[in-house]
């Protein structure tokens, strides 16, 4: 409670401070906001975006209407390109996720993360290394031992996605060889493991949480820097002695070339939004950790994560 009122006070202070900037800031926001989702309805990015928009509406944090538009295609390329072309328009926002960094690395897009105005990292989306509960692998050391003795297969969504990056970072840290099997969607990923086709999968917690709760799957390690709030019993790779962490930014960015006051206005509004119970509920349900990073620091974070991503993709030969 104290936390919340402090944040609310900070938000008010920020708004007051922002209103010191002549004319513009006190006028903002005047118009309807278009919140672009670069992926289809019902996906991870869409769920986060709609949760944020619902909170902004419910608590009147954004005084005008917000329209959510799904512009999917090309692993986010289409939607993010649309927002990038809104340069200078303070009424265009979008949510980031793994593809926000990954797609420009593997594809020829007309945008990169650098083009956008960063507002805040609201949550990190990290990966579990998961095995079947009835398998011989009870700990991560069993996995490392098996991989050193023989062939070990790890499946994940896509060939150059965050799952592949996590698996490679783990293999490097553990000094093991493994065979990566790129699998399509979440459903096929689950059956690749239930059917015993592969030894382990790297997956987003929301894709395997149902199986973990039911006891079919066991998660051995988590790729974030801190344990998941939803599965506090599962250690991080770093805790287990494998020196890496990798998570993807679930955050909010605005169109390029904006008045710094607009950025500040949004930092304040979203600081308020993430303090609401609905947001905490979202984090718990999706097994995400919420250590927000704001404004320019978010920009720096994106740069570091993108560099890590790029290095792994180069190493596995997915890009030159």
């Amino acid at each position, binding site marked *: 409670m104290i936390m919340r009122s402090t944040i609310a006070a900070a938000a008010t202070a920020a708004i007051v401070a922002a209103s010191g900037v002549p004319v513009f800031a006190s006028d903002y926001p005047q118009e309807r906001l278009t919140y672009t989702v670069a992926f289809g309805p019902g996906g991870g990015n869409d769920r986060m975006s709609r949760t944020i928009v619902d909170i902004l509406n419910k608590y009147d944090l954004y005084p005008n209407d917000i329209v959510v538009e799904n512009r999917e295609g090309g692993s986010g390329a289409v939607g993010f390109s649309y927002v990038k072309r809104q340069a200078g328009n303070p009424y265009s926002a979008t949510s980031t996720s793994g593809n926000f960094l990954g797609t420009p690395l593997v594809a020829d897009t007309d945008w990169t993360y650098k083009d956008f105005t960063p507002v805040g990292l609201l949550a990190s989306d990290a990966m579990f290394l998961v095995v079947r509960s009835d398998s011989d692998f009870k700990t991560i050391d069993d996995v490392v031992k098996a991989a050193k003795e023989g062939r070990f297969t790890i499946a994940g969504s896509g060939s150059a996605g965050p799952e592949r990056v996590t698996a490679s970072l783990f293999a490097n840290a553990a000094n093991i060889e493994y065979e990566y099997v790129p699998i399509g969607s979440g459903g096929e990923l689950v059956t690749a493991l239930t059917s015993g086709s592969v030894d382990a999968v790297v997956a987003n917690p929301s894709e395997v949480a149902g199986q973990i*709760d039911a006891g079919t799957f066991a998660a051995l390690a988590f790729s974030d820097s801190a344990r998941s709030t939803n599965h506090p019993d599962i250690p991080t790779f770093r805790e287990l002695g494998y020196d890496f962490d990798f998570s993807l930014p679930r955050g909010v960015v605005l169109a390029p070339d904006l008045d710094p006051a607009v950025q500040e206005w949004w930092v304040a509004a979203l600081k308020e939004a993430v303090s609401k119970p609905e947001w905490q509920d979202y984090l718990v349900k999706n097994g995400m950790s919420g250590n927000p990073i704001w404004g320019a620091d978010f920009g720096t974070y994106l740069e570091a994560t993108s560099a890590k991503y790029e290095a792994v993709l180069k190493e596995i030969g997915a890009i030159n």
Partner: protein
Amino acid sequence: MFSEVISNLSLGLSIAASPEGLLFLLLGAFVGMIVGLFPGFGPAAGIAVLLPLTFGLDPTTAIIMLAGIYYGSMYGGTITSILINTPGESATVASTLDGYPLAQKGRAGPALVMQAIASFFGGTIGVLLITALAPSLANFASKFGPSEYFLIIAIGLLMLTTMMGDNKFKGFISALIGFAVGSVGVDVMSGQQRFTFGSPELIGGVYFVAVAIGLFGIGELLHCILNGQHRQPAEKLRISFRDKEFWPTRKDFAESKFTFLRGSAIGFLAGVLPGSGATLGSIIGYSVEKKVAKDPENFGRGEMRGLVAPEAANNAASAGAMVPLLSLGIPGSGATAVLLGAFMMWGLQPGPLLIVNDPEFVWGLIASMYLGNMILIALSIFAIPLFVKFLDIPYLHVVPVIVLLCVIGAFAINASIVETWILVVSGAVGFAMKKFGYSPAATVLALVLGSMAEETFLQSYIISQGTLSVFWERPVSLILSIILLCVVLAPFGLKLAQRVFGKTEKHLAHQK
């Protein structure tokens, strides 16, 4: 066990059959059917577009409405297959093969009624099987890894040969075009882009919907214009419920009574398997029907069984696809993947525990599938005279409407002009295919299944260390491999048998 089923189902019915539940079910079915009428909007696109409508509702009401949309767009999607030869999604491609010729023969009314009955039958059988068998079938689905997927897709691709039309050589060329188009996009193994020409829209591959609308819808339209159909006056089809021509004949029912059962059973099994259940179900349903028929030469020329089989199959498959979704949290099709997202949006956790933790939700959904089917068969039969009226309009005036609908359907996929261009190019190709006797159905289905076959084959190949042993070392794979071999070898075996027994048969035939 039986009493458990009854109590579960009555729990579901108590939720779905509430006044509020029924209202939203009816609303969903109606809206879904209207959306399904747009070329390109099958269940997956229909649910994705309409999903935001349900966000304000509580989960159970929302899922009831979505169940209505799901089935509504299945029913609506076939109507365009029959009337304007334009499938809304890959699962209704097979329905155009005999559905459209039936409409051309002036039997649009009976064809639409039969497809509604087949859909109802397939859907209801499917839900009955879910109610009775869901838990045991779920374990079956979880045994399917990449090697099993590949084999089942390969069987589907083999079955495709029965749908290629009379000239097998041209049929193979058509399928190869589909495979070639399917290779556009990111290579699943290396992550490298193939044939995308720097276009971000092509990273995800060529989406089959624009291709299907172009090849079928626009291609057919151009062909009709070539034949001068726009200069002919409209046929006078004054159809109402009282006309005999509106209803299927007793012969239609008598001939296809087993078709309903075969189609539903095949479709349901295909649907349970995660992958492309409804599409494979409709292909296998159609081709089995043609194989068992005494008069296979009638198929493709407006044979009622050729419409009933894929329709019963794809609706049973949509029900079957709910089995892995509800019992394991594994989406088996595009539409169920969108539903899975919706579950999570409402704060439900899809997985093996869903049915334990939220029985009201799961059984409410299953019950609304029963009710949805009933509502839709009534809705369809009432609406059919309206749809048939469409054929009353002179073709000259129909053309712009079809073009408009096709362009909207293609554009709406991603709100991008790239798909519209794909539509235009496919339209020209479809026209040439129709004119020279190639098979657009083979192209579209090869496009859908080809890239899946490639991915799953390469996954299996990596898993088995570059050998093919995975295809016989795993038990389920072994069974599927044997089925695959049988499908390949059966024609040779039959020929051999004919050579041995041929004389006696001819002799017998002569005696008749």
